[in-house]
């Protein structure tokens, strides 16, 4: 990919236009290299895959699949996953892992419904208080995970596997295993309303993704996330407070599950206790499909958006095509393995270069 220099072999004429032309040629080469760099990334490949999936289902059943209602449907199902995937992208870039997000979602879901019920009445106030409470308890569980990982040095896989079970159990204890079906009308309206043809739920996911995408790629906080994941010792020696940074990311992961729980509550007007046991698989699959490395140090927010849309779109399209939706799990699984294999190949060739 590294095309050598841009200077054309010119004789020793030193007239100005010549030099100007050279500079312009140089700039052109640099632009082309930048484009080549961008094209040679996982998000671009995965966008191709997503496009193929779209085209395939459009060929199968264009009227149903490409209808406005169906596209709204796809984005609505993707929204809670996307919110959690945004935080998971940070965590995985920093070489962290949080398997407990589905359970934290359910726990926050329950707390939100309980708090809204306890505050009582209708209108914005109980909904907002419930939202804050949900994000708060989510962040709390995330912080718990973070403390276990950074201070107690329990591996993230074990810590969050533990909270995956414990937090779901705690949610079941609170509700005795029954869903809470009474939520304020204003929340139901928020879930049903849309702005510019896009559901408020989807808007929330879009805003979260854009804001945290910008933070990841433009700010020092994002840069430190990459450094921690790429070489934790380098981060320490550079004076970055690695533990505090990881704590923030685990808290962010929990908070994102809290927000996703709120979006699910708004969407279904009920808690969904038994509906999130595979959420974490969908989220991690999406993030990895989008090109974020399992080993940290590497990843893009744009990739995560594309990666999350792949399993969701497959699921939706297969139902429309009257194929058993179980095929979605089969297809996503193999796409995931193939994507990671290709990524490994690319990295190995890079390291050999």
């Amino acid at each position: 990919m590294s095309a050598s220099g841009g200077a054309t072999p010119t004789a020793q004429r030193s007239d100005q236009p010549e030099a100007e032309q050279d500079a312009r040629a140089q700039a052109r080469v640099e632009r082309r290299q930048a484009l080549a760099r961008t094209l040679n990334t996982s998000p671009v490949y995965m966008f191709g895959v997503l496009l193929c999936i779209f085209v395939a289902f459009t060929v199968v059943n264009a009227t149903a699949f490409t209808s406005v209602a169906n596209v709204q449907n796809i984005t609505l199902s993707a929204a809670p996953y996307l919110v959690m995937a945004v935080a998971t992208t940070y965590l995985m870039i920093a070489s962290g892992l949080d398997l407990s997000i589905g359970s934290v979602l359910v726990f926050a879901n329950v707390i939100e419904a309980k708090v809204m019920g306890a505050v009582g009445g209708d209108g914005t106030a109980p909904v907002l208080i419930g939202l804050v409470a949900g994000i708060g308890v989510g962040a709390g569980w995330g912080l718990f995970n973070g403390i276990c990982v950074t201070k107690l040095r329990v591996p993230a896989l074990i810590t969050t596997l533990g909270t995956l079970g414990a937090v779901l159990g705690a949610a079941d204890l609170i509700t005795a295993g029954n869903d809470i079906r009474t939520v304020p009308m204003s929340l139901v309206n928020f879930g049903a309303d849309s702005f510019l043809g896009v559901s408020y739920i989807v808007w929330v996911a879009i805003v979260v993704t854009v804001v945290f995408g910008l933070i990841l790629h433009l700010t020092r906080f994002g840069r430190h996330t990459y450094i921690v994941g790429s070489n934790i010792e380098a981060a320490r020696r550079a004076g970055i407070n690695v533990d505090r940074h990881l704590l923030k990311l685990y808290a962010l992961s929990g908070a994102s599950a809290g927000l996703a729980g709120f979006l699910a509550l708004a969407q279904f007007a009920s808690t969904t206790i038994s509906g999130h046991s595979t959420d974490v698989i969908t989220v991690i699959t999406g993030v990895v499909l989008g090109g974020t490395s399992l080993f940290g140090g590497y990843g893009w927010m744009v990739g995560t958006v594309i990666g999350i849309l792949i399993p969701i779109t497959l699921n939706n399209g297969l139902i429309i095509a009257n194929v058993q939706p179980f095929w979605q799990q089969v297809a996503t699984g193999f796409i995931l393995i193939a994507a990671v294999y290709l990524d490994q190949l690319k990295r190995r060739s890079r390291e050999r270069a």
Partner: protein
Amino acid sequence: MSAVLEARDITKRYGHVQALSGACFEAHKGEVTALIGDNGAGKSTLVKVLSGVIAPDGGEILLDGEPTRLDSPQHAKRLGVETVFQDLALAPDLGPADNVFVGRELFKPGWRGRLRILDKAEMRRQALDAFVSMGTDVKDMHAPVAALSGGQRQSVAICRSVMWADRVLFLDEPTAALGVRQTRNVLKLVRRVAERGVAVILISHNMTEVLEVADRIEVLRLGQRVAQYRGKDTSVEELVGAMTGALDFHEEVRP
């Protein structure tokens, strides 16, 4: 000339092992000082003490004649003492410029700076400036460090430290993993750093390399300094003799 960095009677014990038993050391402005010694002579321990990584049990460290306590590597860095360890501590997925500015990121001016938005172009420009002015062959500012050659990686690590080291730069075996040509480039780089007025301390096993690049040579043996030489007045035989103790005790005289 007074020393920029001076260590007096440093002691450090790990359990039963006396790593340093009253070691002295000095490094001068604008000079390359080689620190040599056999395995286990206490080189790494001394470097760690002098760069703030570990605290000595006893002895004194003087920076520009001032007695100083180095509490941490960060503290040492604030005092202008930088170290390039053998593992380089680079983030392999990030670019050369990103690595140079790790932990010292530059922000865009104005409100964007208050939002902690990075000035990536400016960091790339300054890093490239450093790479060019130090005569390195690091050119591709977009490639991840993992894709660079061993010599280029070493150059990135050294340039990073040089950008911030205004007093002392420790280089721990900088050429250990390099080929002949890359070794040559790194040694040139080491000379250039010294010419900037930094006291460079080179830890090395390679005697010819040491003789080629060092102004002064300090020999460590069994946790103590046993000899000091001017680089141009000594030879490999003399250095090896001092390192192994043959010179002091005339134990290993062979026909």
